[in-house]
């Protein structure tokens, strides 16, 4: 496993797109922090990057990379290697390199300008979402045989998690607004890794608005160490499930 992983990482790290992604993150992070004299406001801008851009890039890049590695995968499969090893190496290779890119591009500026609980949570969630969306990309690539369909599918999944899910949640809230929905909403947030990440970062950051009203319910649940642990557990499940499903498919796949 280690060997393949090493080669995959070396390959991705040299990839131009990943270099551009790292550089872009770095430029954005440094500029939001240096343009805003208030680093808290810079963090707000970064929040959108972490919740929207990072998942999108991770999903699309990973999907494309897997399809482009098709022949390489064929080469590896003809070698004395377990398919499981190959697939997991690809996953960990992508996850590691993209995490590294995120850490250099966004993590280091955050540590420089905003090294507190909020900053750490932001970095942790950025890394978690990176891993989750690499996993989702593996699923998309595993489900669709053809490259265009695979990329389409992974963009659809990203759209679903970043926009459609929340729109549905909002719709649901309005339909049932006469009922107490806090607990259901808390459970619902576990169905979307982006929501989990967002709530955890916001609890560190914009606590003021969340603390009034029923924000107390979310805070009580997500704010204590049990809630934080459950959130991370939820994100781990989100990282593992799509990967395992795609792995099962890959094991049976004809190459």
């Amino acid at each position, binding site marked *: 496993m280690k060997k393949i992983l090493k080669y995959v990482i070396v390959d991705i790290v040299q990839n131009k797109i990943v270099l551009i992604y790292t550089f872009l993150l770095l430029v954005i992070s440094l500029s939001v922090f240096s343009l805003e004299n208030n680093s808290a406001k810079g963090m707000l801008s970064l929040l*959108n990057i972490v*919740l929207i851009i990072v998942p999108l890039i991770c999903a699309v890049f990973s999907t494309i990379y897997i399809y482009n590695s098709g022949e390489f995968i064929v080469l590896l499969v003809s070698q004395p290697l377990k398919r499981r090893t190959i697939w997991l190496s690809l996953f960990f290779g992508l996850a590691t390199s993209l995490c590294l890119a995120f850490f250099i591009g966004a993590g280091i500026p955050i540590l420089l300008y905003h090294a507190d609980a909020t900053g750490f949570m932001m970095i942790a969630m950025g890394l978690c979402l990176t891993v989750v969306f690499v996993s989702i990309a593996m699923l998309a690539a595993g489900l669709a045989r053809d490259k265009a369909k695979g990329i389409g599918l992974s963009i659809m999944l990203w759209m679903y998690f970043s926009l459609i899910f929340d729109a549905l949640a*909002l719709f649901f809230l309005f339909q049932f607004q006469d009922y107490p929905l806090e607990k259901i909403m*808390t459970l619902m947030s576990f169905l979307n890794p982006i929501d989990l990440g967002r709530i955890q970062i916001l609890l560190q950051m914009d606590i003021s608005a969340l603390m009034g009203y029923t924000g107390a319910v*979310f805070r009580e649940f997500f704010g204590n160490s049990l809630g934080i642990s459950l959130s991370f557990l939820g994100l781990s499940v989100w990282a593992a499930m799509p990967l395992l499903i795609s792995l099962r498919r890959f094991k049976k796949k004809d190459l």
Partner: protein
Amino acid sequence: MKTTIGWHVIFLSLPLFFSLPGFAQGKTIPVGKSKPLQSIQQAIDLAANGDTVLVDPGLYKEENILVRKSIVLKGVDYPVLDGQHKHAIITVKAKDAVIEGFKMQNTGRSEIDDIGAIMIFDSYRVTAINNILDNSNFGVYLQNSRSCLIKDNDITAYGKSELQSGNGIHCWNSDSIQIIGNRITGHRDGIYFEFVTNSLVWRNASVKNLRYGIHFMFSHHDTYIGNIFEGNESGVAVMYTNNIHMYNNFFLNNWGAAAYGILLKDITDSDISGNHFVRNTIGIHMEGCSRIKLHKNIFNNNGWAVKIQASCDNNEFTRNNFTGNTFDIGTNGSLVLNTFNGNYWDKYEGYDLNRDGVGDVPYHPVSMYSMIIDNNPSALMLFRSLIVSLLDKSEKILPGVTPEKLQDETPLMKRLPL
């Protein structure tokens, strides 16, 4: 405006000037273990108007010392008066009496009577200065009094629930009272006014009380300057009052479902300026308020800087700084009878082509999402999600839900130097 403040201060300071110990003519009666008199009450009974009763350090367990004369009761190095969890400590029914330099502790507690450390009834020009009140039910309790001064007292209680705890400084049906430089913590309400008029509350710190930092009603023509209200369970709430003046106060860190920097209910014809509202769930909550001028206030890092109910009218928000608030203005109706002019809003995204420092397009401080949360608090889960940002952006361009008229026509491009 400045002249008004000055006038208030000078006028209200007059009684202080006349009642200072130095001006008291008369003899001094010492009390202490090594002195002829060991009982404070005895010394007071012996004293005549204008005398000074000087109390040595030590522990005194007397039941409710009663002062009915114009005397100065003064402690040396804070003699301790202990109420033994049964009694009030000093009751004053006099004019021109001074209570100074004591440590009073462990008052009684009663369901029926209000029991406190310094009880002032039907008095005129009484001064309580520089005392330490520890574990009292009520700290200083004033009733039917005029022109009294409560200054530099340190008032601490350890109340656990609102119901079992008294107020730090409690004033009822009084006039021309001055509350200056006191530090109050752990009581139900730090300062409580009911039917208290023409009074001054200046430079007090009311911190971590169980309910409100200051709570008043029917207390007209009062002035509040330079006080700090921080971390009180429910912030500050004031009601049914006209002509209040609030300058340069600090309303800080009031978090929670029902906590406000300040709750204004049925307040009219008032002036609120130069105050700091920082890190409150709601900076100012206004209900049924009219003709309040709010200017040069700082709203920073609040959940809602201002929540203004549709029952408010003719209030003016001018030249305030709104920075780092999650929501600037919240409201519950579409009727807009209040004006916002020349404020600085850090969320303003307009432009200033003629470079006069005023933005060329109006700013709409009410976000759609804040209205959604108002109706449907569970929607908080979607806070700062992409869908909510998109809805908010489109609402800003084409207002549909939010009150279109609620806008600042002349938003400032730069933060005011406040």
